[in-house]
């Protein structure tokens, strides 16, 4: 189990372009395929991972590892997720600094950046409104939309720190649900 956890997150780690949110759909598909975590539990994991500091992808790996195999699982999954960054950045700095700004690399990222954007948009849609809700307009999805809009407004208009918004929406959740 530990070895498997490590390998799964190592694979995800190597393609985790865009840092955090773009990776969430990938992790979910992998968990689904392996039958490790169901959609409902995954949603809770994303909420817990999102409210902690640090990249949401690494935090999700820690939480999934812990859920599946306790403390050793948390370590195995986190290591798997972080190791690709360690290897790839060292390789880039040691050997590829000269090519890093080359035309072909820039061209690759010209195509890659919009893909990452698409993945993040999908993550937002998927976790907001599509996963495990049969009908779109239930009390719970409407309230989630309301909280989400309120948070966007508070961060953009009043420049509140995300942690303040998260704590506030926790209290809103206690009142509304």
């Amino acid at each position, binding site marked *: 189990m530990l070895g498997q956890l490590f390998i799964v997150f190592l694979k995800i780690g190597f*393609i985790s*372009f865009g*840092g955090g*949110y773009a990776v*969430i*759909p*990938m992790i979910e*598909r992998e968990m689904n395929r392996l039958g490790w975590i169901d959609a409902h539990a995954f*949603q809770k994991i994303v*909420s*817990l991972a*999102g*409210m*902690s*500091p*640090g*990249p949401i*992808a*690494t935090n999700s790996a*820690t939480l999934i590892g812990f859920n599946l195999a306790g*403390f050793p699982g*948390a370590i195995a999954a986190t290591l798997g997720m*972080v190791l*690709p*960054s*360690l290897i*790839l*950045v060292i390789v*880039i*700095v*040691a050997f590829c600094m000269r090519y*890093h700004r080359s035309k072909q690399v*820039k*061209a690759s990222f*010209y*195509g*890659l*950046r*919009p*893909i*990452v954007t*698409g*993945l993040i*948009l999908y993550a*937002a849609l998927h976790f907001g409104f599509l996963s495990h809700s049969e009908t779109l307009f239930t009390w719970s999805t409407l309230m*989630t939309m*309301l*909280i*989400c809009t309120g*948070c966007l407004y508070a961060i953009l208009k009043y420049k509140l720190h*995300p942690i303040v*918004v*998260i704590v506030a929406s*926790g*209290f*809103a*959740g*206690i009142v*509304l*649900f």
Partner: protein
Amino acid sequence: MIPVIEREVVQKRGWLEQEEIADLVSVAGTAPGGVGVNSAVFIGYRKSGIAGACMAVLGITLPTFAIVYLLSVFYLNFDNNPKIIAALKGIHGAIIALILLAAFKMVKTSLIDVSTTVIVAAALAVMLFTSIHPLFIIASGIVAGILLVNGKELLGMKVRTEPETSRPSDQQLFPEYYI
């Protein structure tokens, strides 16, 4: 994230030159993984090789690991408490808002012309309506980028592969604490 690192590493400790920050930003932003972890590897490796990179990663990962771990242990004890479940559902709404903000930020840096707009729409549609693995979507993005840029150049069109430099005020709008 980057301004905090810059202050600590360039101004306070003198580990990197100011000019190296541009390299740091571009490598940390483009390599897979979080910006914070990638920056730690970059700085650790520059300062003291592979061992330095490993220690830097350990240093930046340990605090978040500890927080997430404590949080999950805490949550395990209150898994059936209706108040905690309701609070988490509320927080879920906030997390969606943060994901949307990240998407909005990416839209501003990645949608620079018609081709990139089409790629975003295509990636979103493929994710929504098919079960194609994201790995293939990522790979096809890289291929599309290379084909588009080289193709357009062959046709004698001018291509800009990077967005115009973003205004510094945009940087503060979205804290990179979570990325």
